[in-house]
């Protein structure tokens, strides 16, 4: 394989000893800053009797407390910011419309670093200045669209901010007419496009696509092959999360054997989610990330909830950054569906909001023809006074689906099932059935 293109060769192929020095410098300055500026960390470090002056190497990070999603929720909206709001140039947020969302602020320098990271991601994937990049991700509080957009412009590509339009025909017409060569979307949206092409009777060879960058949900091998075949593309998988930065945390190079983590911006650990101790290198565990360049929203030892493993072996592409494997699961019950992450408890809350009391329910996730589907089965309760009124029941069903769509941005099928048929699931086991391929 040819030595692949690098956006920032100096950083991406930095010798490990140089990288280590850079990491400890940046880690120490980040810790000094969060201790001075973020009440949460000052309290947490003091409570754990952490003496930052004693933190002399990156591995000493394990002596520091974790940051959890719950911590971030409690700090809504701005309590985790390390700079005054005045210095924040942009705000993104996680969706969590029912739960409390996590609000993330970026300073001007943060935006620049983000641009750098997504530019690296795109170049690693093979995007070049002559490419026409169609970004079919939401441009909203959701960090995906904007994050990739900045990087694509930085790379010098021609960028089409198509966004995630519900009008598939329009998306496809843009792709065909504007001669897009690179598609950036969630895998499910990719599958939708495949279906749309069939419907519109457009042969994929009439498109100019050559490359697809996917993120936001699991890209299984089978789905990957399907997309590559049906869209005539090479596919590249990426990893990112809003709390840490958005897209740009990690991504595949053209070797496509793991995601390179931008280690000059993030320190990565993998821990056993039960003992909370680091696992041996190469073993599977929960991904924990520490930001070391962020000014606005620095996070120390953030538990992502994602299960993965690290591969420190040198990569043929020349990058010295460690690679993480594709996410194989979650430590909690978060459901990742078409780029949106949510919890069963959120669904429950919505259902309860419609019905008045918490109903018994089950969430069924499947993949049909490459498209992820979600069905929410709700047990008809004795409290529903109109058991026999089909119309009223139907109205209730529609209302539930509508609220789920509004709150979670998820198109779910809602179905009623017999009374007492789901009651045994109340303990939680079997409440979510995910038969999608991994």
């Amino acid at each position, binding site marked *: 394989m040819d030595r692949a293109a690098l956006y920032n060769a100096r950083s991406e192929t930095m010798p490990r000893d140089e990288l280590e020095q850079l990491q400890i*410098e940046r880690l120490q*300055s980040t810790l*000094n800053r969060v201790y001075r500026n973020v009440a949460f960390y000052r309290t947490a470090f003091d409570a754990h009797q952490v003496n930052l*002056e004693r933190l002399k190497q990156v591995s000493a990070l394990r002596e520091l407390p974790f940051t959890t999603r719950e911590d971030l929720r409690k700090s809504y909206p701005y309590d985790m910011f390390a700079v*005054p709001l005045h210095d924040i140039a942009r705000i993104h947020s996680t969706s969590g419309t029912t739960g409390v969302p996590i609000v993330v602020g970026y*300073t001007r320098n943060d935006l*620049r670093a983000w641009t750098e990271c997504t530019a690296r991601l795109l170049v690693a994937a093979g995007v070049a200045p002559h490419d026409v990049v169609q970004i079919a991700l939401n441009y909203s509080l959701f960090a995906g669209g904007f994050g990739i957009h900045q990087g694509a412009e930085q790379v010098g590509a021609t960028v089409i901010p198509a966004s995630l339009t519900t009008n598939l025909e329009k998306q496809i017409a843009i792709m065909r007419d504007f001669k897009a060569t690179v598609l950036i979307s969630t895998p499910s949206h990719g599958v939708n496009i495949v279906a749309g092409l069939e419907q519109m009777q457009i042969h994929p060879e009439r498109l100019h696509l050559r490359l697809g960058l996917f993120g936001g949900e699991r890209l299984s091998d089978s789905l990957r092959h399907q997309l590559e075949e049906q869209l005539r593309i090479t596919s590249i998988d990426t990893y990112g999360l809003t709390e840490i930065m958005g897209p740009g945390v990690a991504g595949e190079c053209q070797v496509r054997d793991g995601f390179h983590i931008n280690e000059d911006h993030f320190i990565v650990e993998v821990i056993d989610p039960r003992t909370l101790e680091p696992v041996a290198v190469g073993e599977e565990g929960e991904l924990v990330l520490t930001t070391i360049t962020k000014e606005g929203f620095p996070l120390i030892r953030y538990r992502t909830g994602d299960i993965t493993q690290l591969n420190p072996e040198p990569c043929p592409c020349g990058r010295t950054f460690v690679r993480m494997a594709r996410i194989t699961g979650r430590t909690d019950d978060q459901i990742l569906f078409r780029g949106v992450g949510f919890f069963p408890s959120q669904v429950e809350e919505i259902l309860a909001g419609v019905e008045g009391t918490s109903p018994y329910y089950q969430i069924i996730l499947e993949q049909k023809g490459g498209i992820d589907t979600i069905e929410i089965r709700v047990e008809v309760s004795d409290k529903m006074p109109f058991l026999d009124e089909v119309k009223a029941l139907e109205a209730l069903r529609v209302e539930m689906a509508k609220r789920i769509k509004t709150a979670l941005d998820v198109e779910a099928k809602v179905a009623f099932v017999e009374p007492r048929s789901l009651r045994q699931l109340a303990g939680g086991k079997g409440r979510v059935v995910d038969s999608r391929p991994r």
Partner: protein
Amino acid sequence: MLKILNLEAGYGPLRVLKGISLHVNPGEIVALIGANGAGKTTLLKTIAGILKARSGAIEFDKRQIDGKPPQKVVELGCSLVPEGRHVFSTLSVRENLILGAFARRHRDNGAVVTELEQVYKLFPILKERESQLAGTLSGGQQQMLAIGRALMSKPRLLMMDEPSLGVAPLIAKDIFQTVVRLKETGLTVLLVEQNARAALAVADRGYVIETGQVVLEGTARELCDNPEVQRAYLGKEYKTIDE
């Protein structure tokens, strides 16, 4: 070229540096900014071997230099231009410069003469005042002399402590231009400067030091764009701060 890890140093019971880590790549100008008493001068003195490190490591060109005496550090190619210049006022300009080559006294004398010529080329005024007593020079000229003296040891890393202090603004500008010219000749520079704006204008990267710890690291541009640096060190936005 220079790599510092978890450096601690101080004076008597006073701990000034509380675990500083930083590095300087070959050919770079790296600026250290921070308020009075942050520990910038202490850091340079510790690198130069004038102060002893209490813990931590200083590596210069992959060689451990902490614990080495100052003259050894100079011999290895790391020279300091001290704050307040400290020229020998009762010696002539030429004598001051030649003293700068003291570390190389056992070597080729011809090389010292070549070096002298180079310094005179860099600062023609020193050539004009060659036989004048250093104490009679203006502040700016003394600063040039101090830089010239440091260059006489033919360093690869030049550490400068407040080169613009007590120097007329126009001369200060000259001095910073000289720093850039030195960089162009391949010299690596570690620059401590109260005038953060001027330092960041010539630097590639920088570190912000507060009470003996690094609180910010980045390219000069990143530091210039950091609102906190702007408020604290660049004197911007005074009027709009209402917090």
